[in-house]
């Protein structure tokens, strides 16, 4: 332990060089910018930054990319909370409570909670990366496809929490998302699925297009139907960044503990990542949180849980990357590429051969957390000022961001048509009270779920009991069953109860 702390101290000393400090600062700023822009994904940002690292040393390169990765999990919070446009898939759960809180006239408070959650998640992730790196090398070797499938299924069970008024509509929305994810050439057999002979569908439907179209353009169209009649937010009031008081923070210690565990675990499991962590943390909060009944109405728990968990996954991802050389996400795959470009092969031996570099990277994670929070704090004011602009003007630019973001992914006009289609779908979902979130969840997690399921079935001769027989996946599967069954029972009971009660009594009971 003392040895680890000593090494970490030396890492901080190595970090204080001009090259490392500059790499850290640039990484933080670019990471936040990329995450703020809807459609420009964090992975795409890290990929674009990779060529700029060719001329750098290996440590600066990894510091730059890690800083981008870390601040990228936070930057998208601004557009989610303020405009209901998730900059990244991981920001989707954040808008369910962040946006309502902002619409209730408290955008500064919502962003204050986001900042605190990012700070807590960042510090937890940095500590966990330092503490878990070596022990993890032994434990993670037991993970296989069934464990991945169990984790993703647990993430999908979050649909229970996202269904709003109707679980039926939530499940339908989830199924549509899962089906959209199957369009295109399947990865296991190379078979064309639901392409109907249309060549452009062979590439599949990008979850980004579904997400940005349904959430961004759909919301803009819904507001247009209402004549952009929402008054500018905080009009006539001085907007300040408001960090929550200590007594409010203390009340969320359960949320912080649950989301930290979820975040770090999802980070460690390759493939799960920040998006799954964010969804699972929100789902866990919806199942076990003290204020679960109020989730979705704009409460701090709904902001803290996903933000904290998504930031907390970063350190978790760095652990298998450094200890085993296994990237757990798209961004860490690019970081692995940067290591290899500089002739460094991550693995258990890296702690002996390049200990200084590893602990400088760990130290940079602590510095990145502080830096991104400072950047976030000072970036809040100008962003909130944007909300004072007329709604028609901001909405026009939001629509434009949706188009350009979707186009940037593949430089394809087809994606622009897709944005229009999913914009209309998103509007219809809003209009008829179908929740959009489960559809997006299905689109994002569907391919991961299918791949890990098919791999398990091929490896274990179609024996589905394997998911319950393996200890780790078994525990997660039991958690999934409980997560799905309990709200279902509650829902059926409330339906039966509603049937028995006279309407006037029912209406009286429904009133708060």
């Amino acid at each position, binding site marked *: 332990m003392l040895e680890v702390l000593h090494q970490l101290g030396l890492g901080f000393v190595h970090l204080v060089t001009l090259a490392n400090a500059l790499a850290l600062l640039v990484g933080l700023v670019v990471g936040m910018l990329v995450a703020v822009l809807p459609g420009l994904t964090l992975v795409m940002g890290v990929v674009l930054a990779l060529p700029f690292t060719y001329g750098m040393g290996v440590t600066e390169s990894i510091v730059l990319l890690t800083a981008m990765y870390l601040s990228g999990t936070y930057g998208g919070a601004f557009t989610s909370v303020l405009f209901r446009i998730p900059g990244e898939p991981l920001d989707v759960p954040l808008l369910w409570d962040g946006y309502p809180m902002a619409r209730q006239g408290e955008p500064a408070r919502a962003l204050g909670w986001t900042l605190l959650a990012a700070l807590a998640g960042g510090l937890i992730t940095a500590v966990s990366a330092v503490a878990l790196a070596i022990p993890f090398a032994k434990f993670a070797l037991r993970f296989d496809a069934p464990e991945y499938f169990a984790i993703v299924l647990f993430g999908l069970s979050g649909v229970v929490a996202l269904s709003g*008024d109707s679980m*039926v509509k939530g*499940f*339908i929305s989830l*199924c*549509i998302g899962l*089906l959209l994810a*199957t369009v295109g050439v*399947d990865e*296991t*057999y*190379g*078979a*064309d*699925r*639901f392409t109907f002979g249309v060549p452009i569908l062979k590439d599949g439907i990008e979850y980004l297009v579904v997400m940005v179209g349904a959430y961004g353009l759909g919301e803009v*169209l819904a507001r*247009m*139907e*209402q*004549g*952009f*009649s929402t008054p500018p937010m905080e009009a006539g009031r001085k907007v300040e960044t408001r960090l929550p008081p200590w007594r409010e923070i203390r009340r969320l210690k359960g949320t912080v503990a649950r989301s930290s565990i979820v975040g770090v675990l999802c980070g460690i499991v390759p493939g799960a990542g920040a998006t799954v962590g964010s969804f699972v943390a929100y789902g866990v909060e919806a199942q076990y949180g003290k204020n679960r009944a109020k989730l979705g*109405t704009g409460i701090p728990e709904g902001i803290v849980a996903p933000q904290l968990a998504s930031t907390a996954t970063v350190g978790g991802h760095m652990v298998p990357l450094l200890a085993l050389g296994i990237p757990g996400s798209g961004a860490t795959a690019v970081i692995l590429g940067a290591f290899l470009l500089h002739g460094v092969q991550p693995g258990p031996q890296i702690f002996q051969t390049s200990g200084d570099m590893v602990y400088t990277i760990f130290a940079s994670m602590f510095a990145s957390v502080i830096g991104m929070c400072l950047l976030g704090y000072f970036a809040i004011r100008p962003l909130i000022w944007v909300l004072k602009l007329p*709604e*028609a*003007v901001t*909405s*026009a*630019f939001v*629509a*434009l961001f949706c*188009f*350009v973001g979707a*186009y*940037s992914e593949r430089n394809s*006009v087809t994606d*622009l*048509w897709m944005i*229009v289609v999913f*914009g209309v779908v998103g*509007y219809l979902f809003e209009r*008829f*009270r179908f929740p959009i979130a489960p559809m997006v969840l299905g689109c994002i997690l569907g391919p991961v779920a299918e791949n890990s*399921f*098919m791999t398990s*079935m*091929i490896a274990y*001769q179609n024996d589905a009991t394997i998911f319950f027989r393996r200890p780790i996946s078994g525990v997660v599967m039991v958690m999934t069953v409980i997560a799905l069954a309990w709200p279902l029972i509650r*829902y059926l009971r*409330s*339906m039966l*109860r*509603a*049937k028995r009660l006279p*309407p006037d009594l*029912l*209406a009286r009971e*429904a*009133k708060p």
Partner: protein
Amino acid sequence: MKARVKPMLPYLALLAGAGFLYHHTETFAALGRPGQLGPDFWPRAVLVLLMLVCAFEVARLALAGGAARAPAAKPAQHAEEEEAPRYPWLLVAGIVLTILYVPGMELLGFFVATALYLAGFMLVGRYRRPGVIAASSVLGSLAFVFVFMKIVYVSLPLGAGPFLRVSTWLMAMLRIH
């Protein structure tokens, strides 16, 4: 009878759609290997779940006589939104404008099409300050061209004919190569 069936219609339509897609999975079912689950397994599992959920809702509505009582009252926020005045023509105009923007971008190029789209969108959105509309549309489009073509290296559409020349001139002015 009509009132009884109306709420079931979306679910019946989904049920029919899911049935059609289930039938369609047979086209790629044959590509699987013997003794292994084929590429049709996962979509079929999802479609079965979708059909079960739709059938459950149809049955529930049928048993409740079409006017099934929800387990809980609608949240106040939803009630407020439903009471808010709606302008369907604005929505139609917005959708048409958005649809036109896509081919417009290929014909007019990103800059011209975007400036027109932004201005049109603000006008449709009942904003009536021509100076602000013109300035924000032109400057906003320029900013997008600069950021995405010069910094992020996205190849935005340049348009055709005379509009291609406009885009090329603009790129030269902004030193985008």
